[in-house]
Every structure is written in structure tokens, then in C-alpha cells.
């Protein structure tokens, strides 16, 4: 199974994401933001955390309009898998692949610590390694993670079982404690917390490893 990790100027979790994919058994290729095509045969695209384009204008806004993102959108529209973490989640909302937007944290502070997450659904390749309601500890590191969406969108996410993760103790003011959401076809996941930073004993926690293990397992079987 093959993964591509997109690199923007200012990405800083691209290699961490690549290592987590690789450790789970994926073949990984890095893709530059100016590239106009994804490598052929890619099963999943990872959009990493960081500060793409210095967070200028809005977090993820410039990245969402980069040449590679047109390809990422096409990949998603063909039913491909896309996994955005942190800035990657912001990019996915800016592209419109996921609904809502990420605002400045309600407390206005950059927050960098491990937080409890509650698994909202096990019905996705990203979360099938967890059970619904399971609590896991995953690091967050963001200034703009305050998820917002209209009541109608939040109701739809909830009704369609698309809230992948919720915060156990809301750190940033996110609507409905939302930490990560799935697309309607359940193949695009965006989340603010960083599972790739909790995927190795050396990280001080391995609660995020199951995300990569289940992706690799599902796509290897496909």
C-alpha cells in the first residue's frame, strides 16, 4: 500500500507523518506543493501539520490553492483516501473537502500538550482499531484549532456518525468538542491532534499507532 505525504513550505510534521506510515508498513513518497500530479498508484494522501505558507491570510488558505491540492481534491473526488492532521485539517476545510472551519483557539493561546480524546466512531479505516467511546491520549499543538460549523452541519456530522474524535476536556472552544471529522464517504479524515506524535515508544505514548496500523491493514486488504 502506498502513501504520499504532501510538503508545503512551512510544513513541519511531514517527516513524522511519513515515519508513522512507513512503520505501519506503507511505502511512502513525499510530494512537493508545486507538483502537478500525485505519483501513480497512491492509495492515501497525507496532509501534514505545520505552518504552511506561514499561516498567511488564513491557516491553510494558500496551501489549499497550491497546484498539488487540485490533484488531492481530484484524488478525493475519485474516492481516494486523504488524511489531514492539524494544519492538514485546516487545509482540508479550506479546500472544501471537509465542512466547517478552524478558528483561533477560544483562549487565544497556542496549546501544546497531550489531551484525552474520545473515539466517536470505529467505522472508518482510520478509527477501526479503536472502540467507540475509548479514551486515548494524543498530543495537540495548535493556535487555530477551534472547530466551527453551522448547527445544521454539526447535526449532519453527528447524525451520519462522522465525528471521528471528540476532546475529553475541550481545550480550544471547538463546537461540540469536535477534534476530528470524516467526509460523507468516510474516506477523508481531518483532525487537529497529532497521532503521528504518539506512534512510537520514544514519543512517550503509542495511542496514535492504531490509526496507522488500521489504515495500512485496510488498504493492504483492499
Amino acid at each position, binding site marked *: 500500500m502506498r502513501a504520499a505525504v504532501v510538503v508545503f513550505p512551512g510544513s513541519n510534521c511531514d517527516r513524522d507523518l511519513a515515519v508513522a506510515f512507513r512503520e505501519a508498513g506503507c511505502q511512502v513518497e513525499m510530494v512537493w506543493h508545486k507538483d502537478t500530479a500525485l505519483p501513480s498508484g497512491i492509495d492515501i494522501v497525507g496532509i501534514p501539520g505545520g505552518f504552511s505558507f506561514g499561516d498567511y491570510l488564513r491557516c491553510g*488558505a494558500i496551501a489549499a490553492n497550491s497546484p498539488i491540492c487540485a490533484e488531492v481534491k481530484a484524488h478525493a473526488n475519485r474516492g481516494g483516501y486523504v488524511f489531514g492532521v492539524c494544519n492538514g485539517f485546516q487545509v482540508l476545510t479550506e479546500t472544501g473537502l471537509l465542512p466547517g*472551519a478552524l*478558528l483561533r483557539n477560544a483562549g*487565544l493561546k497556542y496549546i501544546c500538550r497531550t489531551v484525552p480524546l474520545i473515539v466517536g466512531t470505529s467505522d472508518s479505516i482510520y478509527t477501526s482499531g479503536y472502540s467507540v467511546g475509548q479514551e486515548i491520549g494524543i498530543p495537540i499543538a495548535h493556535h487555530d484549532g*477551534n472547530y*466551527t*460549523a453551522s448547527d445544521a452541519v454539526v447535526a449532519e456530522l453527528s447524525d451520519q456518525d462522522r465525528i471521528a474524535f471528540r476532546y475529553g476536556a475541550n481545550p480550544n472552544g471547538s463546537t461540540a468538542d469536535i477534534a476530528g471529522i470524516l467526509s460523507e464517504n468516510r474516506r477523508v479524515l481531518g483532525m487537529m491532534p497529532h497521532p503521528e506524535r504518539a506512534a512510537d515508544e520514544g514519543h512517550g505514548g503509542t495511542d496514535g499507532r492504531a490509526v496507522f496500523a488500521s489504515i495500512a491493514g485496510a488498504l493492504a486488504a483492499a
Partner: protein
Amino acid sequence: MKARVHVMLKDGVLDPQGEAVRHALGGLGFDGVDKVRQGKIIELDLAEGTSEDTVREMCEKLLANTVIESYRIELS
């Protein structure tokens, strides 16, 4: 020609920065500030004859995120 684009968070979208500014004004002794909303102004130098529709397209595609922001265009 120039265009000036005003981008503001939509009404109903919480603006924590504006709220922090409101608190700070209160701390300085300015009473009676009920609400502060913070936005941004983007100035564009444009080729003569650029239409307002083109600027609106720029807003829709990049300058504003219409999920959370509204915009207003001034041409001069």
C-alpha cells in the same frame, strides 16, 4: 485602479481576538465598549478596467473563507 477588500468574521461567529481587545479596552478604563470585532483590510493594485466581478471571484476563491467570513469590496 485600487480595490480595498474588508474581510470580517460573520455575525454569530465568535471572535476571541475581538473579545480580548474589548477586555483590554475595559482594563484601560474605557467604559461602555459593548462589542469589538476584528477583521482585516486587503488593498489590491489592479489593472485598469478590472471588474468588480473579478474582485468578487478573488474574494470567493481566496481572500475570504465564506464559511466564517463576509467581505465587502470598495473600488476606487
